């Protein structure tokens, strides 16, 4: 038996001994200035990483090598190396970045600057601001269409979804939605844009072609005062069947049937649920519960919360690293 065989074998053994047959869920803890990592198999926190001040929006690069973190109070977007957990560099983001969206080109990051009423476009490779677009007051949510043509900013005070042409970086259209729009998500085919309105208590489904609202979704939870139903983070399943809408202080996640646009289920999770993330298999949904400081795991098939995992204080955003890309 030669050396290479032995080394190959031992590599195999090492690999099989690896506990990570599961994905990692990154969760930003707004109050703790940390990111918690949850193993989806054990549903336990396996590590906690120190990051910049008040981390909120987080997202993974398209190649899953980097984690982008909006460190709101540090006024920067941090780029973390997934392999080493180290902050590689910071991007000029403009003031108070809260949410952002990564262009499919994996190069341009669209950032909402809440205090300045602008959206900043940053080139990650050159680490420079490519453009700043004036939008409505208090921009919050950010989305880029899958075909890369459109960037959407929602402005909380102006109550609009702003359509930015990604080629010209110009604002070309506004769609008026209900009060305090928070999150924006395109469907996988880019035909619809979903926008959640926190105070309005609705989700508006906008036709991309006409940029008109085609459907408004209302929510109602038995025994819950309507003003506590505040739609924020959204997640749309790839199969086009469901949308999961985090309903803030109502402590529920709504499941919307996308063929009828009707809520079909309300799932009890922790207190003040902000955002959600789906596993690559789309079988589990992770929700960040701000006030209760934990993450609830929802089984998509049974539409039931299975477990809640303690993380740091005020978890906000979530992003899932598929197991194939887990370092080591």
């Amino acid at each position, binding site marked *: 038996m030669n050396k290479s065989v032995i080394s190959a074998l031992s590599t195999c053994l090492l690999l099989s001994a690896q506990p990570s047959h599961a994905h990692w869920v990154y969760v930003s803890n707004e109050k703790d200035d940390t990111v918690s990592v949850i193993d989806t198999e054990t549903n336990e926190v396996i590590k906690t990483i120190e990051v910049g001040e008040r981390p909120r929006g987080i997202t993974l690069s398209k190649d899953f090598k980097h984690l982008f973190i909006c460190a709101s109070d540090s006024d920067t977007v941090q780029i973390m190396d997934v392999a080493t957990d180290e902050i590689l560099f910071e991007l000029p983001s403009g003031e108070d970045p809260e949410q952002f969206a990564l262009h499919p080109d994996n190069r341009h990051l669209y950032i909402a600057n809440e205090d300045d009423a602008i959206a900043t476009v940053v080139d990650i490779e050159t680490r420079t601001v490519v453009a700043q677009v004036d939008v409505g007051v208090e921009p919050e949510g950010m989305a880029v269409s899958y075909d890369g043509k459109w960037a959407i900013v929602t402005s909380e005070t102006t109550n609009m979804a702003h359509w930015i042409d990604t080629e010209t970086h110009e604002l070309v259209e506004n769609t008026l939605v209900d009060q305090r729009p928070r999150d924006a998500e395109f469907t996988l085919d880019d035909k619809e844009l979903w926008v959640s309105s926190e105070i309005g208590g609705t989700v508006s489904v906008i036709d991309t072609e006409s940029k008109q609202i085609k459907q408004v979704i209302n929510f109602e939870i*038995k*025994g*819950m005062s309507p003003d506590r139903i505040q739609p924020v983070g959204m997640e749309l399943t790839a199969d086009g069947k469901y949308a999961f809408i985090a309903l803030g202080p109502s402590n529920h996640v709504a499941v919307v049937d996308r063929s009828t646009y009707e809520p079909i289920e309300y799932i*009890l999770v*922790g*207190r003040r649920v902000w955002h959600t993330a789906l596993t690559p298999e789309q079988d589990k949904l992770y929700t960040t519960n701000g006030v*209760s400081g934990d993450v609830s795991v929802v089984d998509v098939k049974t539409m039931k*919360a299975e477990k809640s995992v303690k993380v740091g204080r005020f978890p906000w955003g979530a992003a899932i690293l598929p197991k194939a890309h887990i370092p080591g």
Partner: protein
Amino acid sequence: MNLSHALRCLRGVAVREALRFIGQRGRFFSALVRPLVWLFIFAAGFRSVLGISIIPPYETYILYEEYITPGLLGMIMLFNGMQSSLSMVYDREMGSMSVLLTTPLPRWYLLLCKLLAGVFVAVLQSCVFLAIAWFWDIRPPLAGYLAVLPALVCAGLMLGALGLLLSSLIKQLENFAGVMNFVIFPMFFASSALYPLWKMQESSLLLYWICTLNPFTHAVELIRFALYGKFSPLALVVVSLCTLAFLTAAVIGYDPARGFLPKKMSGAKP
């Protein structure tokens, strides 16, 4: 004691109990309506109150309705245990207890039959309750439905044994109101059936200890854990010990040397 005789006797007592239970339709409905009223009305009012802290066996947030479901199963077992004590007193006054006790089998076994028959009826009721609760969206895991059966039997035996003991002490039918006031209500309210113990601890440490020492709390917790496919050893130990203690005391209470018939009846014409 021969085994086939013993089993036939058990069957006879169980069938009689079931026939009477079904025959008295009012009893069937009231027994079922009681926990359902709690579930539909009481729990609905407190729907959003709970879900603040996660305690075992729960792993995530639950609605109040889900929290009190095991407590309501406990309530069914409790009321049935007391109901069987009532029926013992009733049987004694009506004389049918004499029929049972003149049966050529050991007295402890006859009392055990009576107890098991009562538990059997209570478990039937619990199943109906769980079925209705399922439509009310209270859907524990499938394994829980299986695991809860032995837990219900254990809880039922303990509460039935307590009822048996009480019936050996109560001399007259009218005293049942007293049992309601001094046994059922305190046992039910001062337990983890309606509120988790940590909630009690927040309001009063004394109350917390009363609830912790209440055997009914452990019966409810045994059911609660089982309903989620889990097991609480402490609850099982407490429930088993209490069952043994109550049963022993009841058998002593029914010892013929003590004369179990109330004076009123035996000395009907003093």
